């Protein structure tokens, strides 16, 4: 469940500790934004999944396959996820447009 609690800070702490432990190579090894490397990747993937699920939810709403209660529950969950993503971005000093991956010839991921 996504709740308005301290979980954002706890997740951020875990990410920083994991990247700092040396068990994984730094994703974006610069002194200025060393903390952002793994966090940026993780949050980008979460954002990608969020958009995919949002798109699917809208498709099902338009298709009339969901009850009103299910729509309400999904909407509330997505809103909480949106709030949690904003919180995580603030912790790591990331803007919404930072959550993207350059795939070279294929363009950006999102």
């Amino acid at each position, binding site marked *: 469940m996504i709740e308005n609690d301290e979980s954002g800070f706890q997740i951020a702490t875990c990410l920083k500790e994991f990247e700092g432990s040396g068990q994984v190579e730094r994703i974006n090894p610069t002194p200025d934004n060393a903390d952002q490397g793994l966090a940026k990747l993780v949050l980008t993937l979460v954002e990608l999944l969020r958009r995919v699920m949002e798109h699917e939810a809208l498709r099902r709403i338009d298709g009339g396959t969901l009850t009103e209660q299910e729509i309400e529950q999904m*909407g509330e*969950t997505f809103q909480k996820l949106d709030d949690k993503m904003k919180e995580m971005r603030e912790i790591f000093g990331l803007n919404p447009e930072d959550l993207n991956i350059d795939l070279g010839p294929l*363009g950006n991921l999102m």
Partner: protein
Amino acid sequence: MMTIPYLLGFVREYEESIFWGDKKANFTRLGKHAVLWSGWPSEVFPTKQEFLLAMLSLYEKVCSENIEFLPVQSGIRVSKEENLIDILRKYEVALEDGFNKVSGCYEYSLSLHLCEEEQRLRSSASENQSSDNEIRRGRDYFNKVRLRHKQREDLTQQMTQIIGMINKKLGQCYRDYFIGLTDVRIKPNTDSNKEFNLTLEIAYLVPIDLEQEFHKRIGNLINDNQWEVTLTGPWPPFHFSVVTLQSEGYIVRKSLSWEESTHDRK
């Protein structure tokens, strides 16, 4: 220690030296094509700034001397110099097609800062901000999402119309143009009092003999519309360099199997 080649680009029928910063770049040739390469940037340059300045000086030389040059996507390298010959052999036809496409042309990058459209976005962002505060029901969230999608669609349509108008005004002054959806940079902020940044970026492949006319028509467009325009160039044809390199392992495997199958047929 063996140098791992970092690819800078391809040239056609060029024999003279090219410097990358103060380092002489290397050539590996096959026929009239050659791949320009050097060591890995972090091994050649002490700072990123020096690397970027070296790239800039390389592009200036390429454009000032009308060298036929196809840039390579940044960060491409191979494990050893011998594999460069396989690359040139594999991509011989694609390289020739690519050079023919961009021959006699430069790339120019046009950035349009769209003030009127920004005003509209700023207004709708204020409305969205207040609607964010009013989201009490789950369904309201999806209504907000739909509104955002609609705004994006409207914006894309507006951009398409603007691009069509620009290209019509430019007429025959360009051979090709490139724009991706991601080139429409929208940087909204949660605080609607802050500035938006709505910028449309288009790359044009401009024949050298039409450069002056191209500049003149861009000037006319600026005068006729309320745009802030940034025009940069000439550049090598980054967005029109159609050669896409496959993985080195694939190329080497294919070249070996070609030699084996040829031997079997004899």
